[in-house]
Protein backbone atom coordinates (compact mmCIF):
# COMPACT_ATOMS: atom_id res chain seq x y z
CA UNK A 1 0.00 0.00 0.00
CA UNK A 2 1.27 3.41 -0.97
CA UNK A 3 1.21 5.50 2.21
CA UNK A 4 -0.47 8.89 1.99
CA UNK A 5 1.52 11.85 3.27
CA UNK A 6 2.25 15.50 2.55
CA UNK A 7 5.50 14.40 0.97
CA UNK A 8 3.65 11.90 -1.26
CA UNK A 9 1.26 14.63 -2.36
CA UNK A 10 4.16 16.85 -3.41
CA UNK A 11 5.88 13.95 -5.19
CA UNK A 12 2.74 13.04 -7.15
CA UNK A 13 2.24 16.67 -8.13
CA UNK A 14 5.39 16.30 -10.25
CA UNK A 15 3.62 13.66 -12.35
CA UNK A 16 0.33 15.59 -12.44
CA UNK A 17 -1.30 13.16 -10.00
CA UNK A 18 -1.61 10.58 -12.76
CA UNK A 19 0.25 7.76 -11.03
CA UNK A 20 -1.65 7.23 -7.80
CA UNK A 21 -2.09 3.57 -7.01
CA UNK A 22 -5.63 2.18 -7.01
CA UNK A 23 -6.99 2.13 -3.47
CA UNK A 24 -7.85 -1.56 -3.57
CA UNK A 25 -7.68 -4.55 -5.92
CA UNK A 26 -10.62 -6.02 -7.77
CA UNK A 27 -9.90 -9.72 -7.15
CA UNK A 28 -11.56 -12.83 -8.57
CA UNK A 29 -13.41 -14.77 -5.85
CA UNK A 30 -11.51 -17.73 -4.43
CA UNK A 31 -13.30 -21.02 -3.80
CA UNK A 32 -12.70 -20.81 -0.09
CA UNK A 33 -11.97 -18.34 2.68
CA UNK A 34 -11.50 -18.60 6.44
CA UNK A 35 -14.14 -15.95 7.01
CA UNK A 36 -16.78 -14.42 4.75
CA UNK A 37 -18.30 -11.06 5.61
CA UNK A 38 -21.63 -10.38 3.89
CA UNK A 39 -22.11 -6.64 3.35
CA UNK A 40 -19.48 -4.11 2.33
CA UNK A 41 -20.70 -1.16 4.38
CA UNK A 42 -18.59 0.51 7.04
CA UNK A 43 -19.34 -2.15 9.66
CA UNK A 44 -18.50 -5.07 7.36
CA UNK A 45 -15.30 -3.45 6.08
CA UNK A 46 -14.22 -2.52 9.61
CA UNK A 47 -14.84 -6.11 10.70
CA UNK A 48 -12.63 -7.41 7.90
CA UNK A 49 -9.91 -4.89 8.71
CA UNK A 50 -9.75 -5.79 12.41
CA UNK A 51 -9.89 -9.52 11.63
CA UNK A 52 -6.74 -9.10 9.55
CA UNK A 53 -5.01 -6.55 11.72
CA UNK A 54 -5.75 -7.74 15.25
CA UNK A 55 -6.34 -11.44 14.80
CA UNK A 56 -4.06 -12.25 11.88
CA UNK A 57 -6.98 -13.75 9.92
CA UNK A 58 -6.27 -12.49 6.42
CA UNK A 59 -7.93 -15.09 4.24
CA UNK A 60 -11.14 -13.07 4.36
CA UNK A 61 -13.65 -11.95 1.72
CA UNK A 62 -16.16 -9.12 1.96
CA UNK A 63 -19.13 -9.82 -0.33
CA UNK A 64 -21.04 -6.73 -1.39
CA UNK A 65 -24.02 -6.89 -3.72
CA UNK A 66 -23.51 -3.34 -4.97
CA UNK A 67 -20.55 -1.04 -4.41
CA UNK A 68 -18.58 -0.54 -1.19
CA UNK A 69 -20.33 1.86 1.16
CA UNK A 70 -23.38 2.20 -1.10
CA UNK A 71 -25.81 1.26 1.68
CA UNK A 72 -26.51 3.26 4.81
CA UNK A 73 -22.83 3.98 5.30
CA UNK A 74 -22.83 6.71 2.66
CA UNK A 75 -26.46 7.73 3.16
CA UNK A 76 -26.35 8.83 6.76
CA UNK A 77 -26.01 12.24 8.37
CA UNK A 78 -22.67 11.23 9.97
CA UNK A 79 -23.37 12.14 13.58
CA UNK A 80 -20.92 10.50 15.97
CA UNK A 81 -21.52 10.58 19.74
CA UNK A 82 -21.42 8.18 22.67
CA UNK A 83 -23.78 9.70 25.25
CA UNK A 84 -26.07 6.69 25.59
CA UNK A 85 -28.01 6.04 28.79
CA UNK A 86 -27.36 2.44 29.76
CA UNK A 87 -23.96 1.08 30.78
CA UNK A 88 -23.92 -1.62 28.08
CA UNK A 89 -24.67 0.79 25.23
CA UNK A 90 -22.46 3.56 26.60
CA UNK A 91 -19.53 1.14 26.82
CA UNK A 92 -19.98 0.02 23.21
CA UNK A 93 -20.39 3.50 21.72
CA UNK A 94 -17.58 4.94 23.85
CA UNK A 95 -15.32 2.12 22.66
CA UNK A 96 -16.13 3.30 19.14
CA UNK A 97 -15.51 6.94 20.09
CA UNK A 98 -12.01 6.12 21.34
CA UNK A 99 -11.25 4.34 18.05
CA UNK A 100 -12.63 7.32 16.07
CA UNK A 101 -10.17 9.56 17.87
CA UNK A 102 -7.20 7.79 16.29
CA UNK A 103 -8.83 6.45 13.15
CA UNK A 104 -7.34 8.69 10.45
CA UNK A 105 -3.83 7.86 11.70
CA UNK A 106 -4.58 4.16 12.10
CA UNK A 107 -5.97 3.86 8.56
CA UNK A 108 -3.62 6.41 7.02
CA UNK A 109 -6.77 7.89 5.53
CA UNK A 110 -8.39 11.21 6.37
CA UNK A 111 -11.89 10.35 7.60
CA UNK A 112 -12.39 14.05 8.47
CA UNK A 113 -13.51 13.24 11.99
CA UNK A 114 -14.51 16.62 13.39
CA UNK A 115 -15.27 16.83 17.11
CA UNK A 116 -17.46 19.88 16.86
CA UNK A 117 -19.85 18.86 19.63
CA UNK A 118 -23.40 17.53 19.51
CA UNK A 119 -26.33 19.13 21.26
CA UNK A 120 -29.61 17.33 22.05
CA UNK A 121 -32.31 19.87 22.80
CA UNK A 122 -35.02 19.60 25.44
CA UNK A 123 -38.34 21.37 24.93
CA UNK A 124 -40.40 20.05 27.83
CA UNK A 125 -39.92 19.41 31.54
CA UNK A 126 -39.84 15.69 30.85
CA UNK A 127 -37.20 16.18 28.14
CA UNK A 128 -35.08 18.04 30.70
CA UNK A 129 -35.47 15.34 33.34
CA UNK A 130 -34.44 12.71 30.79
CA UNK A 131 -31.49 14.83 29.72
CA UNK A 132 -30.32 15.29 33.30
CA UNK A 133 -30.61 11.61 33.98
CA UNK A 134 -28.70 10.70 30.83
CA UNK A 135 -25.98 13.29 31.44
CA UNK A 136 -25.47 11.97 34.97
CA UNK A 137 -25.34 8.40 33.70
CA UNK A 138 -22.79 9.42 31.07
CA UNK A 139 -20.55 11.11 33.62
CA UNK A 140 -20.62 8.06 35.85
CA UNK A 141 -19.41 6.12 32.83
CA UNK A 142 -16.58 8.57 32.20
CA UNK A 143 -18.19 10.04 29.08
CA UNK A 144 -18.00 13.81 28.60
CA UNK A 145 -21.51 15.17 28.95
CA UNK A 146 -23.02 18.42 30.18
CA UNK A 147 -26.39 20.08 30.61
CA UNK A 148 -26.65 23.46 28.90
CA UNK A 149 -29.01 26.32 29.75
CA UNK A 150 -30.79 28.20 26.95
CA UNK A 151 -28.29 31.07 27.43
CA UNK A 152 -25.34 28.74 26.95
CA UNK A 153 -27.03 27.22 23.90
CA UNK A 154 -27.59 30.65 22.39
CA UNK A 155 -23.92 31.43 22.85
CA UNK A 156 -22.86 28.29 20.96
CA UNK A 157 -25.51 28.64 18.25
CA UNK A 158 -26.39 32.33 17.87
CA UNK A 159 -28.66 31.70 14.88
CA UNK A 160 -31.05 29.40 16.72
CA UNK A 161 -34.34 30.74 18.04
CA UNK A 162 -33.90 30.28 21.79
CA UNK A 163 -36.56 32.83 22.68
CA UNK A 164 -39.56 32.11 24.84
CA UNK A 165 -41.77 32.92 21.85
CA UNK A 166 -40.80 29.84 19.92
CA UNK A 167 -43.62 27.38 19.45
CA UNK A 168 -41.65 24.77 21.36
CA UNK A 169 -39.31 26.90 23.48
CA UNK A 170 -35.87 25.43 24.10
CA UNK A 171 -35.43 24.71 27.80
CA UNK A 172 -31.94 23.27 27.71
CA UNK A 173 -29.82 20.61 26.08
CA UNK A 174 -27.36 17.84 26.66
CA UNK A 175 -23.96 18.56 25.16
CA UNK A 176 -21.14 16.21 24.30
CA UNK A 177 -18.09 18.23 23.26
CA UNK A 178 -16.17 15.20 21.93
CA UNK A 179 -19.01 14.24 19.64
CA UNK A 180 -19.19 15.44 16.05
CA UNK A 181 -19.25 14.26 12.46
CA UNK A 182 -17.02 12.34 10.04
CA UNK A 183 -16.95 11.93 6.30
CA UNK A 184 -18.96 8.77 5.79
CA UNK A 185 -17.67 7.47 2.48
CA UNK A 186 -14.08 8.13 3.53
CA UNK A 187 -14.74 5.79 6.45
CA UNK A 188 -15.80 3.00 4.07
CA UNK A 189 -12.92 3.70 1.68
CA UNK A 190 -10.33 4.00 4.45
CA UNK A 191 -11.29 0.65 5.95
CA UNK A 192 -11.50 -0.91 2.48
CA UNK A 193 -8.04 0.25 1.48
CA UNK A 194 -6.46 -0.81 4.77
CA UNK A 195 -8.19 -4.22 4.72
CA UNK A 196 -7.20 -4.81 1.10
CA UNK A 197 -3.59 -3.98 1.95
CA UNK A 198 -3.66 -6.73 4.59
CA UNK A 199 -4.88 -9.27 2.02
CA UNK A 200 -8.67 -9.11 2.38
CA UNK A 201 -10.56 -9.71 -0.90
CA UNK A 202 -13.24 -7.06 -1.48
CA UNK A 203 -15.76 -8.58 -3.88
CA UNK A 204 -18.20 -6.01 -5.24
CA UNK A 205 -21.27 -6.87 -7.33
CA UNK A 206 -21.38 -10.14 -5.42
CA UNK A 207 -24.77 -10.83 -3.92
CA UNK A 208 -25.35 -13.59 -1.41
CA UNK A 209 -28.43 -15.51 -2.52
CA UNK A 210 -28.38 -18.38 -0.03
CA UNK A 211 -26.41 -20.19 2.64
CA UNK A 212 -24.84 -23.64 2.55
CA UNK A 213 -25.87 -25.27 5.78
CA UNK A 214 -25.31 -28.90 6.81
CA UNK A 215 -26.28 -30.41 10.18
CA UNK A 216 -27.00 -26.96 11.59
CA UNK A 217 -23.55 -25.67 10.61
CA UNK A 218 -22.61 -23.18 7.94
CA UNK A 219 -20.00 -24.05 5.36
CA UNK A 220 -20.47 -21.46 2.65
CA UNK A 221 -22.70 -19.14 0.67
CA UNK A 222 -24.37 -19.11 -2.72
CA UNK A 223 -23.77 -15.97 -4.74
CA UNK A 224 -24.55 -14.63 -8.21
CA UNK A 225 -20.87 -15.38 -8.97
CA UNK A 226 -20.93 -18.98 -7.78
CA UNK A 227 -20.54 -20.73 -4.45
CA UNK A 228 -17.88 -19.66 -1.97
CA UNK A 229 -16.97 -21.70 1.08
CA UNK A 230 -16.13 -20.63 4.62
CA UNK A 231 -16.74 -22.13 8.04
CA UNK A 232 -17.35 -18.71 9.59
CA UNK A 233 -19.75 -16.20 8.04
CA UNK A 234 -20.61 -12.78 9.48
CA UNK A 235 -23.65 -10.95 8.08
CA UNK A 236 -23.45 -7.18 8.31
CA UNK A 237 -26.25 -6.21 5.97
CA UNK A 238 -28.22 -3.51 7.84
CA UNK A 239 -31.69 -3.13 6.27
CA UNK A 240 -31.42 -6.44 4.43
CA UNK A 241 -30.55 -8.52 7.49
CA UNK A 242 -34.04 -9.94 7.77
CA UNK A 243 -33.87 -11.14 4.18
CA UNK A 244 -30.57 -12.94 4.87
CA UNK A 245 -31.90 -14.44 8.11
CA UNK A 246 -34.83 -15.86 6.19
CA UNK A 247 -32.42 -17.54 3.77
CA UNK A 248 -30.75 -19.15 6.79
CA UNK A 249 -34.09 -20.29 8.17
CA UNK A 250 -34.74 -18.02 11.16
CA UNK A 251 -36.32 -14.67 11.97
CA UNK A 252 -34.90 -11.57 13.63
CA UNK A 253 -36.58 -9.01 15.88
CA UNK A 254 -36.12 -6.35 13.20
CA UNK A 255 -38.23 -4.17 10.98
CA UNK A 256 -36.75 -2.41 7.96
CA UNK A 257 -37.81 1.20 7.48
CA UNK A 258 -36.85 3.95 5.08
CA UNK A 259 -34.95 6.78 6.75
CA UNK A 260 -34.19 9.89 4.76
CA UNK A 261 -31.89 12.85 4.73
CA UNK A 262 -31.60 16.07 2.75
CA UNK A 263 -28.86 18.51 1.91
CA UNK A 264 -29.26 22.14 0.95
CA UNK A 265 -27.41 24.28 -1.52
CA UNK A 266 -23.94 25.15 -0.16
CA UNK A 267 -23.79 28.15 2.18
CA UNK A 268 -20.93 30.03 3.78
CA UNK A 269 -20.02 28.67 7.23
CA UNK A 270 -22.91 29.39 9.57
CA UNK A 271 -23.33 26.39 11.88
CA UNK A 272 -20.24 24.88 13.51
CA UNK A 273 -21.83 22.23 15.68
CA UNK A 274 -24.56 19.58 15.46
CA UNK A 275 -28.05 20.32 16.75
CA UNK A 276 -30.59 17.57 17.31
CA UNK A 277 -34.09 17.67 18.69
CA UNK A 278 -36.06 14.55 19.48
CA UNK A 279 -39.08 16.54 20.41
CA UNK A 280 -39.66 18.54 17.25
CA UNK A 281 -37.98 15.76 15.29
CA UNK A 282 -35.16 17.12 13.23
CA UNK A 283 -31.43 17.51 13.32
CA UNK A 284 -28.92 19.54 11.40
CA UNK A 285 -25.23 20.19 10.83
CA UNK A 286 -23.21 21.87 8.11
CA UNK A 287 -20.75 19.92 5.99
CA UNK A 288 -17.31 21.17 5.02
CA UNK A 289 -18.70 21.76 1.53
CA UNK A 290 -21.17 24.17 3.09
CA UNK A 291 -24.42 22.31 2.60
CA UNK A 292 -26.79 21.93 5.50
CA UNK A 293 -27.20 18.24 6.28
CA UNK A 294 -30.67 17.59 7.62
CA UNK A 295 -32.07 14.36 8.95
CA UNK A 296 -35.60 13.20 9.42
CA UNK A 297 -37.47 10.51 11.27
CA UNK A 298 -38.17 7.10 9.77
CA UNK A 299 -41.18 6.41 7.63
CA UNK A 300 -43.45 4.38 9.88
CA UNK A 301 -44.13 1.58 7.43
CA UNK A 302 -41.80 -1.27 6.52
CA UNK A 303 -40.00 -0.56 3.27
CA UNK A 304 -37.01 -1.52 1.18
CA UNK A 305 -37.27 1.23 -1.46
CA UNK A 306 -34.35 3.55 -0.79
CA UNK A 307 -36.39 6.73 -0.74
CA UNK A 308 -38.44 8.58 1.82
CA UNK A 309 -41.99 9.88 1.86
CA UNK A 310 -42.98 13.45 1.23
CA UNK A 311 -44.92 14.03 4.47
CA UNK A 312 -41.75 13.19 6.43
CA UNK A 313 -39.72 15.76 4.48
CA UNK A 314 -42.33 18.38 5.22
CA UNK A 315 -42.47 17.51 8.90
CA UNK A 316 -38.69 17.65 9.25
CA UNK A 317 -38.30 20.95 7.47
CA UNK A 318 -41.03 22.47 9.61
CA UNK A 319 -39.01 21.53 12.68
CA UNK A 320 -35.78 22.92 11.24
CA UNK A 321 -37.36 26.21 10.21
CA UNK A 322 -39.01 26.53 13.59
CA UNK A 323 -35.61 26.22 15.29
CA UNK A 324 -33.72 28.19 12.62
CA UNK A 325 -36.01 30.82 11.08
CA UNK A 326 -32.93 32.11 9.23
CA UNK A 327 -32.98 28.97 7.04
CA UNK A 328 -36.55 29.43 5.87
CA UNK A 329 -35.50 30.38 2.35
CA UNK A 330 -32.60 27.99 1.90
CA UNK A 331 -33.20 25.64 -1.01
CA UNK A 332 -32.78 21.91 -0.69
CA UNK A 333 -30.54 20.29 -3.26
CA UNK A 334 -30.89 16.56 -2.82
CA UNK A 335 -32.93 14.07 -0.82
CA UNK A 336 -32.46 10.32 -0.46
CA UNK A 337 -33.25 7.39 1.77
CA UNK A 338 -31.56 4.40 3.29
CA UNK A 339 -33.08 1.27 4.78
CA UNK A 340 -32.56 1.02 8.52
CA UNK A 341 -33.02 -2.14 10.54
CA UNK A 342 -34.77 -1.02 13.70
CA UNK A 343 -34.71 -3.16 16.80
CA UNK A 344 -37.40 -3.08 19.53
CA UNK A 345 -34.96 -1.72 22.14
CA UNK A 346 -33.12 0.63 19.74
CA UNK A 347 -29.90 -1.33 20.32
CA UNK A 348 -27.93 -3.49 17.90
CA UNK A 349 -27.68 -7.25 17.63
CA UNK A 350 -24.14 -8.67 17.71
CA UNK A 351 -24.73 -12.33 18.01
CA UNK A 352 -24.33 -15.98 17.23
CA UNK A 353 -27.43 -17.49 15.57
CA UNK A 354 -29.22 -20.84 15.52
CA UNK A 355 -26.83 -21.82 12.69
CA UNK A 356 -23.35 -22.68 13.99
CA UNK A 357 -20.61 -20.55 12.48
CA UNK A 358 -23.10 -17.94 11.24
CA UNK A 359 -23.08 -14.59 13.08
CA UNK A 360 -25.13 -11.42 12.62
CA UNK A 361 -24.17 -7.83 13.28
CA UNK A 362 -27.28 -5.75 12.64
CA UNK A 363 -30.12 -3.80 14.21
CA UNK A 364 -28.12 -0.56 14.33
CA UNK A 365 -31.18 1.10 12.90
CA UNK A 366 -31.05 4.86 12.65
CA UNK A 367 -27.83 5.29 14.57
CA UNK A 368 -25.03 2.90 13.67
CA UNK A 369 -22.61 5.10 11.78
CA UNK A 370 -21.13 6.40 15.03
CA UNK A 371 -20.42 2.83 16.09
CA UNK A 372 -18.62 1.75 12.91
CA UNK A 373 -15.10 1.29 14.35
CA UNK A 374 -16.32 -0.22 17.63
CA UNK A 375 -18.80 -2.51 15.92
CA UNK A 376 -16.16 -3.84 13.53
CA UNK A 377 -13.66 -4.20 16.33
CA UNK A 378 -15.81 -6.28 18.69
CA UNK A 379 -17.43 -8.25 15.87
CA UNK A 380 -14.01 -9.27 14.49
CA UNK A 381 -13.07 -10.49 17.99
CA UNK A 382 -16.34 -12.43 18.19
CA UNK A 383 -15.76 -14.09 14.80
CA UNK A 384 -12.10 -14.83 15.51
CA UNK A 385 -12.71 -16.44 18.90
CA UNK A 386 -16.16 -17.88 18.20
CA UNK A 387 -17.24 -16.25 21.43
CA UNK A 388 -18.93 -12.92 22.15
CA UNK A 389 -16.58 -10.04 22.93
CA UNK A 390 -17.42 -8.77 26.46
CA UNK A 391 -18.77 -5.51 25.00
CA UNK A 392 -20.89 -7.45 22.48
CA UNK A 393 -22.25 -10.02 24.93
CA UNK A 394 -25.21 -7.94 26.19
CA UNK A 395 -26.33 -7.50 22.56
CA UNK A 396 -26.94 -11.15 21.88
CA UNK A 397 -30.18 -12.09 20.18
CA UNK A 398 -31.10 -14.09 23.31
CA UNK A 399 -32.13 -10.90 25.03
CA UNK A 400 -35.44 -10.95 23.19
CA UNK A 401 -36.26 -14.22 24.91
CA UNK A 402 -34.70 -13.60 28.33
CA UNK A 403 -36.14 -10.08 28.49
CA UNK A 404 -32.77 -8.44 29.23
CA UNK A 405 -33.35 -5.62 26.74
CA UNK A 406 -31.14 -2.54 26.70
CA UNK A 407 -33.81 0.08 26.20
CA UNK A 408 -32.14 3.03 24.53
CA UNK A 409 -35.21 4.71 23.07
CA UNK A 410 -34.56 7.71 25.30
CA UNK A 411 -31.03 8.22 24.01
CA UNK A 412 -31.57 6.95 20.49
CA UNK A 413 -35.04 8.28 19.70
CA UNK A 414 -34.72 10.12 16.46
CA UNK A 415 -31.26 10.95 17.49
CA UNK A 416 -28.72 9.40 15.18
Amino acid at each position, binding site marked *: MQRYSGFGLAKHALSHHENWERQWRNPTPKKQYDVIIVGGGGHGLATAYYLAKEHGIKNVAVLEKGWLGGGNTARNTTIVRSNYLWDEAAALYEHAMKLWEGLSQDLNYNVMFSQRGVMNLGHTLQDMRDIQRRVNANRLNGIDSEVLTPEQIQEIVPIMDCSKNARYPIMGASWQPRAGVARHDAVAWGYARAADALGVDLLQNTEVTGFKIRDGRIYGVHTNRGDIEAKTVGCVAAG*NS*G*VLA*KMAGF*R*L*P*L*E*SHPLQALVSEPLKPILDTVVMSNHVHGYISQSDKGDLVIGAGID*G*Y*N*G*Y*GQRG*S*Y*PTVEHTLQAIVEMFPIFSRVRMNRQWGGIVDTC*PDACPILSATPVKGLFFNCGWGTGGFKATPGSGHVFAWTLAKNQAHPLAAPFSIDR*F*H*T*GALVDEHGAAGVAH
Partner: protein
Amino acid sequence: MFHIYCPYCEELREEEEFHPKGEAHIVRPKDPEACTDEEWGDYLFFRDNPRGIHHELWVHAVGCRKFFNVTRNTVTYEILETYKIGERPTVTAEHLAGGDKQGNVQVASGGQQTVGASGAAVASVKGERA
Protein backbone atom coordinates in the same frame (compact mmCIF):
# COMPACT_ATOMS: atom_id res chain seq x y z
CA MET B 1 -47.95 10.15 -0.89
CA PHE B 2 -50.06 7.03 -0.50
CA HIS B 3 -53.76 7.16 -1.16
CA ILE B 4 -55.18 4.55 1.16
CA TYR B 5 -58.63 3.07 0.90
CA CYS B 6 -60.14 2.80 4.37
CA PRO B 7 -62.43 -0.24 4.30
CA TYR B 8 -64.61 1.31 7.00
CA CYS B 9 -64.95 4.83 5.60
CA GLU B 10 -65.03 3.30 2.10
CA GLU B 11 -62.99 6.17 0.76
CA LEU B 12 -59.50 6.87 -0.53
CA ARG B 13 -57.75 9.21 1.86
CA GLU B 14 -54.23 10.64 2.08
CA GLU B 15 -51.43 8.87 3.90
CA GLU B 16 -51.14 11.50 6.61
CA GLU B 17 -54.52 10.50 8.06
CA PHE B 18 -53.15 7.05 8.83
CA HIS B 19 -50.47 5.42 10.96
CA PRO B 20 -48.81 2.12 10.09
CA LYS B 21 -48.70 -0.31 13.01
CA GLY B 22 -46.49 -3.14 11.80
CA GLU B 23 -47.08 -6.73 10.78
CA ALA B 24 -50.70 -7.91 10.71
CA HIS B 25 -52.22 -11.24 11.75
CA ILE B 26 -50.02 -11.71 14.81
CA VAL B 27 -52.14 -13.73 17.19
CA ARG B 28 -51.80 -12.94 20.87
CA PRO B 29 -51.24 -16.21 22.73
CA LYS B 30 -54.49 -17.20 24.44
CA ASP B 31 -52.74 -18.01 27.69
CA PRO B 32 -49.57 -15.91 28.07
CA GLU B 33 -48.72 -17.61 31.38
CA ALA B 34 -48.48 -20.93 29.58
CA CYS B 35 -46.00 -19.64 27.00
CA THR B 36 -42.33 -20.50 27.11
CA ASP B 37 -39.91 -17.56 27.05
CA GLU B 38 -39.27 -18.53 23.46
CA GLU B 39 -42.92 -18.30 22.43
CA TRP B 40 -43.54 -15.07 24.29
CA GLY B 41 -40.40 -13.39 22.90
CA ASP B 42 -41.31 -14.50 19.39
CA TYR B 43 -44.80 -13.07 19.79
CA LEU B 44 -43.57 -9.74 21.14
CA PHE B 45 -40.51 -9.06 19.04
CA PHE B 46 -39.82 -11.32 16.06
CA ARG B 47 -41.18 -10.29 12.67
CA ASP B 48 -41.19 -11.56 9.07
CA ASN B 49 -39.99 -8.21 7.68
CA PRO B 50 -40.19 -9.44 4.07
CA ARG B 51 -38.88 -7.80 0.95
CA GLY B 52 -42.03 -7.94 -1.19
CA ILE B 53 -45.59 -8.74 -0.15
CA HIS B 54 -46.34 -7.64 3.42
CA HIS B 55 -49.61 -7.79 5.35
CA GLU B 56 -49.72 -4.96 7.82
CA LEU B 57 -51.92 -3.20 10.27
CA TRP B 58 -52.83 0.46 9.82
CA VAL B 59 -55.04 2.77 11.82
CA HIS B 60 -57.14 5.55 10.34
CA ALA B 61 -55.81 7.82 13.07
CA VAL B 62 -57.49 11.12 12.22
CA GLY B 63 -60.43 9.56 10.41
CA CYS B 64 -62.68 6.85 11.79
CA ARG B 65 -59.86 5.70 14.13
CA LYS B 66 -60.42 2.08 13.20
CA PHE B 67 -57.68 -0.46 12.64
CA PHE B 68 -57.60 -2.38 9.36
CA ASN B 69 -55.21 -4.44 7.23
CA VAL B 70 -53.21 -3.56 4.15
CA THR B 71 -51.37 -5.82 1.72
CA ARG B 72 -48.48 -3.82 0.34
CA ASN B 73 -45.33 -4.45 -1.62
CA THR B 74 -42.41 -3.24 0.52
CA VAL B 75 -40.19 -2.65 -2.51
CA THR B 76 -42.50 -0.86 -4.96
CA TYR B 77 -44.76 0.36 -2.10
CA GLU B 78 -47.79 -0.55 -4.23
CA ILE B 79 -50.86 -1.11 -2.08
CA LEU B 80 -52.54 -4.26 -3.35
CA GLU B 81 -55.59 -4.41 -1.12
CA THR B 82 -57.02 -3.19 2.15
CA TYR B 83 -59.36 -5.29 4.26
CA LYS B 84 -61.12 -5.26 7.58
CA ILE B 85 -59.97 -6.70 10.87
CA GLY B 86 -60.92 -10.37 11.08
CA GLU B 87 -60.67 -10.82 7.31
CA ARG B 88 -57.92 -12.67 5.46
CA PRO B 89 -55.80 -11.25 2.63
CA THR B 90 -56.60 -12.33 -0.91
CA VAL B 91 -53.24 -11.27 -2.29
CA THR B 92 -50.39 -13.27 -0.81
CA ALA B 93 -46.76 -13.92 -1.73
CA GLU B 94 -47.67 -17.57 -2.38
CA HIS B 95 -50.46 -16.85 -4.80
CA LEU B 96 -48.46 -14.16 -6.62
CA ALA B 97 -45.58 -16.62 -6.97
CA GLY B 98 -48.08 -19.09 -8.45
CA GLY B 99 -48.96 -16.48 -11.08
CA ASP B 100 -52.57 -16.43 -9.87
CA LYS B 101 -53.50 -12.80 -9.79
CA GLN B 102 -57.24 -13.07 -10.14
CA GLY B 103 -58.70 -13.01 -6.62
CA ASN B 104 -61.28 -10.36 -6.03
CA VAL B 105 -58.85 -7.52 -6.09
CA GLN B 106 -58.21 -4.98 -8.74
CA VAL B 107 -54.64 -3.86 -8.71
CA ALA B 108 -54.72 -0.16 -9.35
CA SER B 109 -52.21 1.39 -11.70
CA GLY B 110 -49.66 3.93 -10.54
CA GLY B 111 -48.88 2.00 -7.41
CA GLN B 112 -50.65 4.43 -5.17
CA GLN B 113 -54.27 3.54 -5.19
CA THR B 114 -56.16 0.77 -3.58
CA VAL B 115 -59.45 -0.95 -3.62
CA GLY B 116 -60.98 -2.89 -0.83
CA ALA B 117 -61.03 -6.66 -0.94
CA SER B 118 -64.43 -8.10 -1.63
CA GLY B 119 -65.99 -9.87 1.30
CA ALA B 120 -66.54 -13.01 -0.75
CA ALA B 121 -62.87 -13.91 -0.68
CA VAL B 122 -62.59 -13.37 2.99
CA ALA B 123 -62.84 -15.83 5.81
CA SER B 124 -62.66 -14.63 9.35
CA VAL B 125 -60.31 -16.42 11.64
CA LYS B 126 -61.29 -17.44 15.10
CA GLY B 127 -59.48 -16.03 18.10
CA GLU B 128 -57.69 -13.47 16.03
CA ARG B 129 -58.08 -9.79 16.45
CA ALA B 130 -55.82 -8.51 13.76
